């Protein structure tokens, strides 16, 4: 067992680090330095920068425009992105519908959609959850009815359609068969957001940003060629996607960067006439959190190393989302605690509180969603209890 990277991988790290630093526009770099919040257009700007280097979709096969990296290189690249505090790309195109089309789409669909996902010309959003179908996603009710004239007619409502207001396309899970086992009657359909009958209404999160939308479909006419794979197999496709790139869901790099940020805040915060970072009690609090992250990081490395050897993810990989999101929340809890009175400030003009603290309070609120979205942690526990521990039903 060893934790060193091969010389080739070390060289790769140096190369992408230098490449990323050189490529990042000054305005983004300035924001990254104080971990400021990135707006949608800044994220897309960064998307185009990465696209110009062919680095938008590390996990796509080279045939579709991926850089052809092995899994360790992909992990190193992600670590470097996170370490520099780069904007996080919208996952819906690059990480979700893209890989799904590569695996299950037909050639026309791939040719039509993949290049524009890579280039950033087209932005995607996801239509999974509905007001009455959250944890119980398979109960979804948005209907897609074959009109016998080459179209599906979509009727219903999606919610939590993140950044739908900026999206050119949406991929939806729709009910194409009302009878039988709920999972068996769902299809995966692509839909142009400009199609008549679609209404998007952004709503504020507790973080104060319009991250989510409600999206209504009323008689929305979608060409049948927008069906991905086979009719009524959408659930299978969506599930297949869930296992992808588990090592990224832990958010280890993001939390590492956050702990660094906490320490820098602590250095500039006063307690008893000296920097709070020098207080033994607070040092211990930060250390405990950092140790939790070290443990998770090791579980993550184990998964990465197994992937590099082509092994299936081990049981340790199933804890990554669960514990990773808890640690993300704990980071913001601790940051808010350390900020003291500053933590009460909300989106005030620059200079009210230090720049590095500015986006903490909104994120402290929004990060509560981390243990809810992408399969709530309770659902994750149900899955582990059943499929990994084999506990009786």
């Amino acid at each position, binding site marked *: 067992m060893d934790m060193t990277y091969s010389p080739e991988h070390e060289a790769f790290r140096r190369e992408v680090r230098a490449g990323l630093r050189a490529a990042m526009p000054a305005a983004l770099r300035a924001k990254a330095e104080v971990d400021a919040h990135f707006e949608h257009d800044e994220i897309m700007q960064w998307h185009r920068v990465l696209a110009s280097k062919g680095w938008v979709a590390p996990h796509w096969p080279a045939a579709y425009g991926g850089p052809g990296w092995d899994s360790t290189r992909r992990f190193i690249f992600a670590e470097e992105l996170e370490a520099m505090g780069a904007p996080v790309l919208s996952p819906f195109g690059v990480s979700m519908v893209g890989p799904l089309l590569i695996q299950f789409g037909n050639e026309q669909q791939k040719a039509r959609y993949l290049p524009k996902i890579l280039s950033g010309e087209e932005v995607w959003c996801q239509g999974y959850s509905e007001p009455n179908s959250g944890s119980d996603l398979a109960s979804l009710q948005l209907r897609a009815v074959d009109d016998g004239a080459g179209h599906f007619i979509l009727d219903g409502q999606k919610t939590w359609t993140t950044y739908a207001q900026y999206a050119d396309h949406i991929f939806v899970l729709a009910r194409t068969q009302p009878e039988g086992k709920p999972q068996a009657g769902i299809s995966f359909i692509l839909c142009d957001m400009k199609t008549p009958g679609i209404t998007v209404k952004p709503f504020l999160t507790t973080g104060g940003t319009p991250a989510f939308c409600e999206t209504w479909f009323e008689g929305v006419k979608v060409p049948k060629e927008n069906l991905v794979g086979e009719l009524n197999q959408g659930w299978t496709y969506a599930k297949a996607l869930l296992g992808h790139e588990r090592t990224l869901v832990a958010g280890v790099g993001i939390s590492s960067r956050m702990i660094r940020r906490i320490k820098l805040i602590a250095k500039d915060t*006063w307690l008893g006439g000296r920097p709070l970072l020098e207080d033994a009690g607070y040092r211990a609090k930060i250390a405990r959190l950092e140790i939790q992250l070290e443990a998770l990081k090791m579980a993550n490395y184990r998964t990465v190393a197994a992937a590099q050897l082509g092994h299936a993810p081990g049981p340790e990989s199933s804890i990554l989302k669960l514990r990773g999101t808890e640690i993300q929340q704990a980071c913001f809890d601790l940051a808010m605690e350390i900020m003291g009175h500053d933590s009460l400030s909300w989106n005030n003009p620059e200079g009210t509180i230090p720049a590095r603290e500015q986006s903490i309070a909104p994120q402290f609120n929004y990060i509560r969603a981390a243990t809810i979205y992408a399969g709530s942690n309770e659902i994750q526990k149900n899955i582990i209890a059943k499929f990994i521990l084999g506990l009786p039903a």
Partner: protein
Amino acid sequence: MNFELSDDQKLLVDTVQSFARKDSPTTRFRELRATEEGFDRGVWRQMGELGWLGVMFPEAVGGAGLGVQEATLVLEQLGATLVPEPYLESVLLAGTALLHAGSDAQQQRWLAPMVAGETVLTLAHTERQARFDAFDVSTRAERRADGSWLLTGEKTLVPVGHAADALIVSARTNGAQRDLDGISLFVVEPSATGLERQRLEFMDGHKGATLRLRDVIVPPDALLGEAGQGWKSLELALDHGAAGTCAEGAGLLRAVLEMTRHYLTERKQFGAPIGSFQALQHRCVDMFVEVELAKSTAILAMIKASAADVGERQRALSAAKVTLATSGGFVVRQAIQLHGGIGVTDEHDVGLYFKRHHTLSTLCGDEQYHVERFARLPGFAPLD
């Protein structure tokens, strides 16, 4: 030993509760958080007329001559529906300082109109380097030849600082920056030249200001009590404020539990109310336990806030503040988790309670501050 309310207290609580539920549901808070002031001076006046602002002040200033217990009982009811009027700041914090340190004339001038609901007050003690050590004062006040005072310094993130008709400002008239001695309290009116108030938004939807005092001149009678002797009054005000945060927190947490219980009963997934799933049931029970503990220590705080012995008072208040932060922190976090996605939307109330809880945990000393204070009090020594 008796934790029943007296008949008078019961009447007061019922009235305030009925106002909070009927006349000030969270929709009113939502409307007001979008306004410049963040609260309604008309409602404030009404609170004055109903006697709520004066419960803990003497009859001489128009009060009812009752105590902190009654004031915190009012605040507990207001907390349940996030009533945004500045009761905590104006009555418990600034009010205590004026009551304890102010002369009769000063009380007539600044306390009486607040009790009547004509003005709002606030306490401006926070400085960046001080964290929760309110005795760490770098704002300076110098006596001028004519007896007036020259104030210089900055007070950060003062709740209600944007709207207060008079601000109680702590300033150092002698001693080193972290001395208990040498702290003085001054009443500063917003019209004072050299006073800059930068209006601020708070996370919980309340408003405030950062104050910059640049050679602000206040008259001789702006000094409350003896020069340099302000610490005891400031400390008492913050302790009363702490009791207030615990009381408001108790009201808030009960509402959060009820909201969550209700959601668990109504929301269906997998063909059943989600409150029928044992893991969520037990979580809700854990919340219930913490709410009862927070409520119990809030009662402790209400009773002991006026204890004659400072050690006894602070032991109770620190225990209550820590419990508000820890038990309450668990409750509001789990409340969002159990609400699922809807819990992180601004449309749902649970997030508003989450935010307000953070404010209440932070003001007047956070969890760590009070753990350490508790461990320094005489009552902590083992009895050998």
